[in-house]
């Protein structure tokens, strides 16, 4: 009897620590944290969603989905069809992308890299708040992949290969929209570009040419409107004023801004928010790899960097869709600004130092198939 009492007592005291015992991980599967590198002296610590940390398995699953036409309604297009690695994940120099039904889109395909450092929304118009939401839209957009999520889920759940990778990555047995979004998010977040000549120069590993040095000064200097200068060849008319909107080490700004383009019927952020103050504002994209992402602007209206530079140096007041007095970021450019042909060439030479060749060929970002 005494022994029974003692055993019961010990059992009761053990039970009082049940919560601690339950804290032992129950799942025997191993998930490998994804490792990546970037230039820590030039780029700040990245932001990774706390509910979707990058894992080797999750990135791999996302990579498979990214390159697999299974996401489209007729299995003819993958994300990669409009986001080609060789073009910094843009659409092969096409102005607009063509969907599975032959429908032509209205905006230029956006580059995909360094998304871990993006804060305020995705797409040109900011209509996706987080990346996993962005990832789903091209699948269900009838002008793009024209597929339904339910059908994609059915196709993936029928695939032993995908089910195996799903189990490894998310410890789940069936796909759903959330998991598809998270896997694509992981792969796109994993794409990092920080090995351009510019980066290597900043690290002291290489040097700019004389022309590139001049271009860097032009990029980072304010312009002086021609109306204030008698002599357009005055060296003080040196700046192209690029830095106000592309000034940090990512060469972008978090804000959606207007840039003085003429109206093509697309109000960008304004169409999303309904706020007239947001009309004709678009995502201020990174200038990294700009050499590889032609054509330019949200509607791909400029074929070359030379055309882009010429636009910013021309009299935007004449054609702008918005009153430029509402856009102080364009204050210095709202009147014609002069750059000599040599200085334009130097500016473009500097912009080309932002090309990261390793991004374009890195096998980690290429097709797994």
């Amino acid at each position, binding site marked *: 009897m005494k022994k029974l009492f003692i055993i019961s007592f010990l059992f009761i005291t053990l039970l009082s620590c049940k919560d601690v015992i339950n804290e032992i991980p129950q799942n025997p599967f191993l998930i490998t944290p994804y490792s990546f590198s970037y230039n820590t002296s030039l780029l700040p610590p990245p*932001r990774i969603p706390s509910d979707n940390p990058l894992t080797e398995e999750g990135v791999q699953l996302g990579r498979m989905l990214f390159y697999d036409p299974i996401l489209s309604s007729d299995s003819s297009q993958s994300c990669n069809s409009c986001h080609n690695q060789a073009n910094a994940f843009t659409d092969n120099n096409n102005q607009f992308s063509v969907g599975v039904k032959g429908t032509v889109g209205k905006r230029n395909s956006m580059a995909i890299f360094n998304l871990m450092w993006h804060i305020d929304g995705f797409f040109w118009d900011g209509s996706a708040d987080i990346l996993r939401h962005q990832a789903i839209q091209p699948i269900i957009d009838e002008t793009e992949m024209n597929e339904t999520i339910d059908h994609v889920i059915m196709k993936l759940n029928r695939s032993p290969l995908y089910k195996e990778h799903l189990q490894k990555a998310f410890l789940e047995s069936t796909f759903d929209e959330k998991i598809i979004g998270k896997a694509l998010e992981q792969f796109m977040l994993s794409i990092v570009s920080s090995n351009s000549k510019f980066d290597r120069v900043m690290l002291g590993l290489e040097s700019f040419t004389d022309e590139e040095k001049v271009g860097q000064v032009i990029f980072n200097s304010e312009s002086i409107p021609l109306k204030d200068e008698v002599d357009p060849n005055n060296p003080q008319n040196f700046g192209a004023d690029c830095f106000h909107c592309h000034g940090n080490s990512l060469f972008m700004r978090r804000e959606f801004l207007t840039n003085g383009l003429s109206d093509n019927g697309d109000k960008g952020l304004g169409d999303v928010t309904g706020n007239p103050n947001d009309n004709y504002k678009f995502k201020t994209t990174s200038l990294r790899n700009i050499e590889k992402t032609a054509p330019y602007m949200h509607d791909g209206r400029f074929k070359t960097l030379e055309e882009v530079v010429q636009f910013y140096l021309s009299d935007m007041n004449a054609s702008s869709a918005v009153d430029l007095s509402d856009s*102080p970021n364009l204050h*210095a450019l709202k009147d014609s600004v002069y750059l000599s042909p040599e200085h334009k060439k130097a500016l473009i030479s500097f912009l080309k130092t932002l090309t990261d060749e390793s991004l374009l060929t890195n096998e980690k970002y290429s097709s797994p198939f």
Partner: protein
Amino acid sequence: MKKIIFIIIGIWFLISVMGCKPDPPIKNEVSTMDIIINHLFDTSDFELNQEYTLPSDEPVKFSRFAYLLSNFYLIDENEFRIALDKQYLYIDMKYSNSDFKLINIPKGTYKGIGFSIGLDSIINHGNPNQYTLDHPLSPINNSLHWSWQGGYIFTAIEGKTIHNNESFIFHLAGTQNKVDFELPYNFSKEDDAIHAILNYNIKEVFQSPEVYTIEIDGLSTHNVEDPVTLKLINNMKDVFSVSSIESL
């Protein structure tokens, strides 16, 4: 033998019970201060894209109003300045982020609070990429860093004049243009958090001691020592006041 068994059982019981107890609360000598900054234009609530008349009688609309605060300290009853190190605030009317929290506020009785618009030289010229994206000093977060010069814009004021339809852009920077504030206000910090309400009167930036007339004084500055910067910085010395500081 029975005694030994009961002693073992007793020890087992004590260990198991103590092992499941939550950790005792640590007596905390510090707490937090919630700060709300009311942005005013004279006596009205200040909002972007609303029309205001400057002291120069120029009607304007502001499209951007953002600034950085640093160097927070409390003045105790013995006039000692107690620094609240490494705490920075990024205020941007676009994001309506005017509700903040300072930490590590020691218990005590205080006679005022101090802080600066702007940054000391070491921070101003330090590597901005050390900060996480949600840090007040992250250039990605605040868009207030002149990367090519290695320093921050302390205050960014942008907008347009109504009559002339001209945009203005005042980017005030330079360590020498940091503006220090020391605001007397008696309060005591006991166990509860402190709730502080400060007022920032934007009209003052254009009012005193010298009225700033955009048409005459200029539409823009990005220069740390030109007359536009110096005039606006000089006018900023009285923009802040204390509405209340209370222990809740």
